[in-house]
């Protein structure tokens, strides 16, 4: 074998703390290394051209590039060596940036470490084999999980591009958080006016199948062919028969039910249509509130339903579907602000969340768009907004900024003035974060035009005094303590990953960060991809973002999915397991452990043997580590290749 080694400077990223020339000189002494050099930017066009030229000039049969992480540029350089006529798997990378130059400043130690990493890579490369992918057909259908604005956007874009789309929404209606909003910043246009038509589009699009009040039960399979089970939860209403007339909701006697859509601002019935523009506009019974389902007596809705759609015996239904790609758009939840005792811990009815306040502002909300104090229904005059409730607070494990609270608080202060012209808003804030198009202007307007009083400081205590709430806090700009007598306190509650996001991530086999937000493939370059091929991200499930960003990411995810599913065939990754039939004793242990059922027993001249189903194998190598005689090996990560890396370090 003739190995070429290229030590990348990455400008000064590597060369700053690694003597790249010395590493190249050392590499030249390694077995089978025929050419070694250092290079300014290996990944740039001149760098790639230099690699190609060297392959040709020195008749190289394998290449090691020591540069950044293979998770970044391995695909890049594989294409490079392929352009030079080599098999793309005759390539190894040594990560001397993320694992060396960026984590230490000791040039001697770094240079030595870099040289050793190159030796490991070269030792492994000597055992690399040319691998060729197999191709398999793709199912041209997309699953979108989550029917908020990001999921709606992704579903519509993909459907418009001709893909079949399955949209799964946990709640009885799509619309997500945006449907709950009264207005949107910074234009203050009506949220349901702009979202509603898109929701209708979803309902009417011939390519979209909507499963509302449904959840993803399980996902198996891989890019191109995922097998998905969807649990359609029992709504106790036959949605084929239901016309959405709403008669049942008027007659239902269980009138003290928690109103999920309205964030508990006022009660609702056990059988509901969440809001007038709901898609699908179908009734559903919330089991825990229904008198018949919990107590066995009632049946009013069944009696009044003109189409006989009520079915108390309904059970969850499992729907199976095969899809080629998946977009996760599961949004976010508000944190449980009641952990904050200083704001009353939930004991004072006139301390409300920003989302409850949205519902009060909304004309279709429980108060008909009139701002009323929950305690006595009186219109408030002095309204205090407290920002960063649960954001930027390491003490509760939420050190991050939720990103959109500053803006919606400004919006709500404006709306407060619009609704109650003689009102005064106070906003306690830490910093104002408004880096968006027209955003900073908006936060100025609320202060200058709408005369909201912005007080930079934290609130230390909210306590009742008569029918008022005293908000005590610091004004850090003035350096004084302030107390505001408020009629209503609105908490700008921060957001966190949706409560069941981790479970979904496990089903989708994607990663999530310590807060539960899904991990994108690369923070800069793969913002909508995940590390699981065929699974894409849209909206706040990947990280908190406002509506325009969510919509943009929904379109981006759709674009990625469309790109993937526009192909008829996909190449399978050839880094998969293979069996040496003459060494296999047919014990079946590999079959037992394979998470993908990718190994089957075959009969070879009367002997049982294992056989890998090539397009099913995902290349995890669990079988390889399980097989006692090493008869099944993972291509590109064989025992001998890993041992070569170990022995390059550990033999003395």
């Amino acid at each position, binding site marked *: 074998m003739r190995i070429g080694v290229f030590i990348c400077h990455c400008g000064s990223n590597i060369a700053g703390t690694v003597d790249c020339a010395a590493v190249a000189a050392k590499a030249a002494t390694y077995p089978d290394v025929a050419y070694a050099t250092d290079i300014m930017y290996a990944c740039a066009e001149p760098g790639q051209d230099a690699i190609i030229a060297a392959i040709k000039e020195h008749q190289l049969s394998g290449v090691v590039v020591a540069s950044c992480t293979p998770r970044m540029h391995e695909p890049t350089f594989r294409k490079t060596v392929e352009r030079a006529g080599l098999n793309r798997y005759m390539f190894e990378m040594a990560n001397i940036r993320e694992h060396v130059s960026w984590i230490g400043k000791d040039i001697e130690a770094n240079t030595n470490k870099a040289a050793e990493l190159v030796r490991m890579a070269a030792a492994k490369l000597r055992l690399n084999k040319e691998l060729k992918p197999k191709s398999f057909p793709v199912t041209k259908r997309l699953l979108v999980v989550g029917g908020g604005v990001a999921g709606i956007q992704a579903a519509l874009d993909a459907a418009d591009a001709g893909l079949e789309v399955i949209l799964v929404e946990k709640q009885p209606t799509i619309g997500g958080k945006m449907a709950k909003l009264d207005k949107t910043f910074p234009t203050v246009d009506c949220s349901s006016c702009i979202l509603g038509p898109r929701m209708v589009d979803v309902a009417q699009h011939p390519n979209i199948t909507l499963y509302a009040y449904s959840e993803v039960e399980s996902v198996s399979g891989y890019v191109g062919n995922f097998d998905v089970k969807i649990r359609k939860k029992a709504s106790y209403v036959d949605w084929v028969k239901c016309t959405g007339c709403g008669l049942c909701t008027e007659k239902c006697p269980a009138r003290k039910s928690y109103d999920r859509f309205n964030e508990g601002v006022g009660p609702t019935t056990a059988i509901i249509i969440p809001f007038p523009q709901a898609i699908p506009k179908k009734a559903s019974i919330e089991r825990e509130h229904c008198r018949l389902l919990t107590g066995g007596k009632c049946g009013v809705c069944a009696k009044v339903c003109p189409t006989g759609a009520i079915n108390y015996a309904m059970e969850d239904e499992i729907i199976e579907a095969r899809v080629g790609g998946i977009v996760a758009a599961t949004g976010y939840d508000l944190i449980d602000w009641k952990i904050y005792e200083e704001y009353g811990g939930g004991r004072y009815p006139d301390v409300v969340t920003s989302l409850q306040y949205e519902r009060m502002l909304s004309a279709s909300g429980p108060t008909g768009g009139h701002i009323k104090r929950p305690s006595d229904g009186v219109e408030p005059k002095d309204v205090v907004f407290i920002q960063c409730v649960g954001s930027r607070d390491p003490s509760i494990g939420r050190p991050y900024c939720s990103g959109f609270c500053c803006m919606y608080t400004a919006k709500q202060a404006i709306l407060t003035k619009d609704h109650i012209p003689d009102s005064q808003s106070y906003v306690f804030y830490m910093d104002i974060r408004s880096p968006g198009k027209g955003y900073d202007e908006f936060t100025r307007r609320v202060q200058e035009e709408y005369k909201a009083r912005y007080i930079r400081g934290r609130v230390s205590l909210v306590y009742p005094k008569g029918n008022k709430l005293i908000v005590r806090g610091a004004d850090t700009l003035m350096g004084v303590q302030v107390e505001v007598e408020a009629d209503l306190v609105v908490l700008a509650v921060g957001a966190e990953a949706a409560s069941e996001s981790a479970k979904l991530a496990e089903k989708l086999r994607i990663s999530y960060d310590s807060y539960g937000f899904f991990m994108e493939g690369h923070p800069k370059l793969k913002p909508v991809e995940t590390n699981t091929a065929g699974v894409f991200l849209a909206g706040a499930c990947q990280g908190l973002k406002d509506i325009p960003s969510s919509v943009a990411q929904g379109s981006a995810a759709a674009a990625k999915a469309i790109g993937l599913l526009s192909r008829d065939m996909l190449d399978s990754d050839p880094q998969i397991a293979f069996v040496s039939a003459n*060494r*296999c004793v047919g*014990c079946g242990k590999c079959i037992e*452990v394979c998470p993908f059922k990718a190994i089957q027993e075959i009969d070879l001249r009367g002997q049982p043997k294992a056989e890998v189903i090539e397009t099913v194998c995902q290349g995890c190598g669990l079988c390889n580590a*399980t097989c006692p*005689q*090493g008869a099944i090996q993972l291509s590109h990560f*064989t025992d*001998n290749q890993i041992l070569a890396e170990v022995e390059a370090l550990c033999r003395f």
Partner: protein
Amino acid sequence: MSIQDDIKAAIAKALQDIPCVIGWGAGPEPLRATPLFMRNAADVENFTAGFLAVNNPALYLPSCKGVKTALVVKGCDARSVGQLVAENLVKRDELYLIGYPCSGVIDVDKVAARLEGKCEPGEVTRLREENEDVILDTPGGEVRLAKKDIAADKCARCRYPNAESADVFIGEKRAPVVDQDEYADLADFEKLSLEERKAFWEKELSRCIRCYACRNACPLCVCRDHCVASSREPHWLTQADGVRDKLFFQLIHATHLAGRCTGCGECERACPVGIPVLTLKRAFSRQVEDMFGYMAGIDVNTTPPLLTFRLEEPEIKEREW
């Protein structure tokens, strides 16, 4: 009729529709029996069970695959069979097991220790069993030894003296010797410091001749002809005469037996140079028992612990970094 005769009758009966019954027969010297493959009545006459029935006949099962085979089994042998069945390495319906109550088997090395200064075990010209004793004819006259003093170590911690899974059981079942394996042998070994343990293995393994009798005597080493010990793909070991390679082979054997070893001890008994290789396997077995509540070869319906998992592992206390 003695149990021996009853077993012979059972073997003869089994041979009516099974071509071969594996048991034990007279060996090359008085202290040792040898595995006996019985195919006809004359063979059955050579059958012997009891104190000399040391070898584990389960060893031969994988090579009998596809042919109905009968075995005469001790309790420990039956566990090996059970594990082979649990792992689907042999089919239970291809087996016929004749069980009998085992009261322990001889350890020739212990006899050697008892005869120290008198003669070598190879000079014993006759062995007679008399209840709980054996009487040996030696060049210096008769020597009487208590069976319990010269029985294999495993017999003193036997929890399963009766082949519970046998198709036919000859004789009265015996009570287990102990209810619980306390792993006292390991506890003794662990009185050594880490340094001493390392030195111990270096010294012991330096004697290894790489004959792989330990492996070939193991009823669960089903790779045998394809063992990684001598393969180049994968190439785990060199063929050199060094402690590192020799120990590494033992680690291969022990890790491959983790959660599978039934503790029959044949590896250690087979070792011609007396390396206590069972210790390594028992170290795994103790952990497997503690961690997963699993004992190999008892329940054929339980998946061996390293071929499965639980989402939560209450017994695994991971390190908090």
